[in-house]
């Protein structure tokens, strides 16, 4: 399910050379993904409501429709 599982699973029928190339490519892609997520989380940390507990507690709606 996770992106890591998916990306690190080379298909067994491929020859060794291709597999190692794939692994290198995947490793660098993985790093890129991790980097992207890190930058995103930095941004989320900045923008997320300061007092999450109070924010969530006060978010009360009436049912609608």
């Amino acid at each position, binding site marked *: 399910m996770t992106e890591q599982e998916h990306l690190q699973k080379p298909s067994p029928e491929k020859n060794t050379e291709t597999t190692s190339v794939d692994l290198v490519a995947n490793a660098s892609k993985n790093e890129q993904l991790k980097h992207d997520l890190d930058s995103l989380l930095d941004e989320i940390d900045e923008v997320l409501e300061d007092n999450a507990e109070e924010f969530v507690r006060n978010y009360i709606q*009436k049912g609608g429709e």
Partner: protein
Amino acid sequence: MAIAKVLGIETEYGITGGPDGDPVTASSILVNAFARNGVTRINWDFGDESPANDARHMPLLTSVAPMVETHLANTVLTNGARFYVDHAHPEYSSPECRTPLSGLLYDRVGEDVLLHAVRVANQTSEGMPPITVYKNNTDGKGNSYGTHENYLVDREIPFAEIVRAMAPHLISRQVILGAGKVGFETEYFEELAPRFQIAQRSEFFEELVGLETTLKRPIVNTRDEPHGDPERFRRLHVIIGDANMSEVATFVKLGSTALLLAVLEDRGSGVFPPMPKTPVRAVREYGADLTLTHGQEAVDGRTRSAWDYQDELWNLAEGYVNGGDGSAVASEAELTLLLTNWREMLDGVRDAPESVADRVDWVAKLRLVNGMRERHGLSDEDPRLAAIDIQYHDIRPEKSLARRVGLRKLLEASAIGEAFHNPPRDTRAYFRGRCIAQYPNEIAAANWDSIIFDLGVDPLHRVPMMDPLKGTAELLGELLDNASSAEELLRALGTL
């Protein structure tokens, strides 16, 4: 032949702030702020103003329209949409749209309408706790509010056939269209206690078929209010969807559902996969199954996951389009965009979720939740996770998390700006929107299927619009261009 799938989305937004934190007052302030700012030149309050009351009691006014059933703030926009207070929420109903992309556009414009209203209200109400709105469907405490889709359906299709054909889609489409939710909020899940669900709404559904929307919510809603000629049309009112922040998800939601309705009209319900034996259990449990593998037994004895259902339904829709059908829904290019995204999202959620985090809301939200959990070592109960869930749907660009996760866009900013003011050109919304823009002072009331003009002398004049495909730019554009007053328009239409 399938009939044109005229469609639209009604969205109830979550709301906080305002005087005493009263959501009804805050919602009214928003609607009035929008009208006051002159973005729409027509607005009225059916409670305080007499024109509407007059209109309501006119013997000619046969339809019971939503716009005359409430005393709360209510306005019709120049883009043909309706912006009003429903229960304790501000609600934006898109105008009638001819294709899924158009439906997406006008739903997206709703976010800007709300944003504009919020900014005007907060700038002009000194000392008031600022109002904020969220395009979501639950407060995480057991209170849910709706995002309802509407589709025009041929009256000849028996309702039982609609239920039989469409329930599997409505139950399973959450697998790619769910907006995601942290935790659970109904008794049903107390034992299983899922940490995350793929949809906001699924656990709130209690019946397969019914008329209710707030209690005993049904998977297929039976409201029979076509807002058009009841001899020819039915309006399928779909209450089970989540509000999507992803443009692609909204597009695929409208497109897949409209396309399957067209398949039903052309091929009958027999070509659809069979219903799960226990549909309510299925919709809830699919919603809590992040592995996407858990099957539910269907009436044919086979077990299917939500993913399996979607795979079958995609193949059904793809076969229909490949056979040359689908013009009831959209152009070939738009159908290709639809089928491609539907397929990629479906394969993506199973094989490589990361690859569709730019289109599937629940995947994008889960990525944030898991990322934050790991980064800060948070427990499941940490309020920061619930805060992410809510703030994902904040419509303010400076606060919205959805705007930060890299969701793919289908709409040009210029198109959104244009649709903020102008109606779609290919449905009766065109006539409504242009009349409101051109003759704001001579319209006593408007609703989905009529406009009532008040020329200052008795009687009022009602222009019925019982066919959603009439009143288009093609049919009436020139006439509207040339009518410098409502009186001239009515003469040209033969109403005077």
